[in-house]
């Protein structure tokens, strides 16, 4: 059997911004799954570690007409010219050709943070402190994800530990092909309103592939040309205009003009 017999996947997500309630379950489920340590006493919004961040945005109209949307944002898994990959001096970042997932290996990382400046989505996080858990809590860490150390960068990898688990499960049955229902990232699983769809974009029949082609779908900063694999869905015009600055500006002009 050859490697070529294994189907190449492009894992992606579609997040429905019209459903997201900003509860934060995805953010916590992500931190639990990926052994992200609790914040230090001095932690703040700019130096904490949240592989998945939910931004609260408004349309800018004043009280009482303001509209709010929540934008969960994790690594967008850029497919083409992935900004963080080419900059890493020691190959700690790469796009897995088999899954399309952008991998970050903290043990290879030297902590130069160049990739962080390269990422327009601010999806990369640096360990400013030693990761520490309260007494006894280390026994409750996820065995499938290695904890990181101070001084390295980490980020979302679509819960790769779960892909390992799914592959092992398939292998136990003698198969190289995973069962798609075995591989669902923690944020997707936790979402109380099921706003996130996940799956293989190469497989036309998956929900995520259908949603990615829908009229409501858009991607953030798509004009950078990095072909991200996280799609966002919204029927609200002002939300869709958040995709990039040129679009956001066109709205302002129509308002004022």
């Amino acid at each position, binding site marked *: 059997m050859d490697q070529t017999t294994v189907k190449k996947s492009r894992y992606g997500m579609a997040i429905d911004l019209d459903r997201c309630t900003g509860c934060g379950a995805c953010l916590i489920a992500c931190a639990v799954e990926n052994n992200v340590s609790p914040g230090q006493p001095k932690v703040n919004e700019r130096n904490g570690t949240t592989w998945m961040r939910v931004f609260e945005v408004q349309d800018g109209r004043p*009280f009482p007409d303001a509209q709010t949307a929540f934008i969960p944002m994790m690594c967008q898994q850029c497919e083409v010219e992935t900004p963080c990959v080419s900059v890493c001096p020691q190959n700690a970042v790469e796009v897995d050709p088999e899954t399309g997932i952008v991998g970050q290996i903290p043990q290879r990382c030297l902590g130069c943070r160049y990739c962080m400046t390269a990422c327009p989505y601010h999806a990369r996080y640096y360990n400013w402190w030693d990761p520490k858990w309260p007494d006894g809590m280390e026994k*409750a860490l996820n065995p499938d994800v290695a904890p990181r150390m101070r001084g390295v960068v980490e980020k979302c990898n679509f819960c790769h530990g779960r892909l390992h688990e799914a592959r092992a499960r398939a292998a136990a049955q003698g198969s190289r092909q995973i069962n798609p229902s075995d591989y669902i990232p923690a944020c997707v699983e936790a979402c109380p309103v099921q706003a996130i769809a996940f799956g293989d974009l190469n497989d036309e029949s998956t929900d995520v592939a259908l949603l990615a082609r829908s009229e409501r779908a858009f991607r953030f900063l798509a004009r950078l040309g990095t072909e991200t694999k996280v799609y966002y869905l919204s029927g609200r015009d002002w939300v869709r205009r958040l995709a990039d600055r040129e679009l956001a500006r066109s709205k302002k002009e129509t308002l004022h003009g």
Partner: protein
Amino acid sequence: MPLTLTRRNVLKFVGGSIAGMMVTPLPWKLLDDVAIWTQNGPWIPKVPRGPITTAFSTCALCSAGCGIQARCVNTIPYALSGIRNHPANNGTLCPSGVAGHHLAYHPLRLKSPVQLFRREETIEVQPVSSEEILGKISAAVAISRNAGEGTLALLDQRPGRSVSLFYRNQLAMHGRGVYLVSPTDPILITQCLDEMVGTSFGPVGYNLERVRTVLSFSAPVLDGWGTPVQTSKMLAHRGSSGQKGARVIQIDSRYSRSAQLADQWIPIKPNTEAALAFGLAHVLLREGLYDKALIQSRALDFQTKGKHSYFDLVGRFTPDHTAECTGVSRDVIVATARALAAQGPSLVIGDGDSGGGPLGREAEMAVWGINILLGALGSNGAIVHHRAVPAPKEFSANGLSPVQGVSDIPDHSIGVLLIDASEQGDPLPWSLLERKLIPDQSLVVAFSPTLTGLAQHTHYIIPTPAHLEALTDVPTMLSSATGTFSVSSPLLRRPEGTMDAREIMGKIFEVEGTLEELLKQRTSAIFESRRGRVFKASTGSSVQLTELGSSDELWAELTAGGMWMDDPVRSKPLPEFHFMGRSPAAYERMLDAGEGISSSNEPDAPRKITVLPYGRRAEVGGAQLSPLMTKLYQESGLHRSSKVAVLNPATAKEFNVANGGRGTLVTERGTQEVTIRVDGAVMPGVAEIAVSPEPVGQAGTEIVQEQDILELIVPDQAPTWRAFRATLQKA
């Protein structure tokens, strides 16, 4: 040939050594090993290794009763997820629930009994034996019983559990026992209905699937008020699913999550909900948008003429007058009332925000009034009557102490206050509780797994098992259309020094028995009722209770993530009732509630701001939050703690504070520093502040007292704390 030691020779020797070293593995292997050491050094946490198993239980952090599936390593849970097809959560979990298995490792976790000493900003603890504390309680209980000095009060942070029945039972037998709940507890809301009806109407629930329009009076309808499944259904019409869902209209002084997510947000001046309810009733009555025959036959205070009748009361709240009271425009009032009537079935929810304090009895009755006019309560209504979860007979035989809100009992009356904080419940200003105690003579003891919330104000704490260490049952949620029962079985071994609340109370009242026996008795009672269906986690589907062979089988299902759901009953026809309740001077009280404390009318000292506290379900009242909740609070600002005040830009300007700057809030009770966040969506003139303290990610060297905005409340102001005035200065 003697080898003479000269400088030159030494240099040559060193040169030779260096050259030699380069062709040994030493420098290269060292370089490699040092790099590996930086990857695996002892300071880097190691993952557990061991057999992976799956366990099932039920989340007890709130009364939604979500089924949880735990992945465990060495039998210790390391990740939780929801159980697929579970009637409460269908495979999902809320942020608190998903990190529930961390609560056992809370940095302020207690594992042995302590005595507390509150210092300026910190708390010192000293270990004591549980016998000593229990001895003190027993002595005080005896004094209260015999000498009649002060009552024995028990504050139940999670009423409705089986152990709550046990408490009420024991307190009733004690004679001078008082059973207290937070004034925001949903039980008190149904009590308002009881007052209107004159007898106990029985438990009610909300059949959200049947409604097309939901009007919420500041209830967090889309943010934890119902179960995840209910919330998901209410939001289902959004996005791509193409399903139908209810239209939600949120009346709220705050730009709350529900206000953000609702189809329509109606901002309202703080504390004027009663007026708006009367105003809506006015439109319904004036335009005849109700079943006249039915109401006239049932309502006992509904004479279309008489003075001091409901008609008369509501008549005062013309749309214009209501607009003046509430700040809601006349057109919106009229349109909302019409929409409720036209786009039925509709229902009105009056349950306040769990952190923001109760709406107040009169406002609740006003809300029930609209529900009655809309036909939401009655034979075809969406507010349904259901049966109580069957309970062992001994409880009804011995009598139950009545449920009382903390503000309902006289000041300086409590001699011994026991706080069951083993489950986190709705938050409560300590000042409200403190004034009920006999000054300097009372004994306050908490049963709590952590040194957080109200437990920080007590004299002693007896530690209880933490979430998922404890065995407990989950009571029926207010939003549930039928009675439900599930059991949170322990997934973790509890520490040696802990006792569950049943054990502690058993010792105090000298009653034999364990919690497990109590819950098994309850399970038998349910089994014997032969009603309802049981969700089985193992199959992901529900079966008729009668399909189960024995009570033990039911117990096995319930302790493994199962849930019992009662059969729905046909709704009672609308009984006879008084719109304004039966208390003397009902009319005046209702009128006061409507006209009353609208904050805009009071002549203000300059530079006062209206503080609107709020809470998030399962993230308040004791703030037993996973250390990882720093992700939502400190690390992303998605949730805000008591340290952040959100203001309208105009208000910020008025008070001379800037976005990201610091401000100090001052009332007679004290001061609190807050970080200012400016948000154009917030109502001018108010400061929205959450009641939860910041989650603790790491234990400090000393225990710092929680900074809770509720501490600033001056208790004399009102029985509720939904809005209070404070000065705000730039810090």
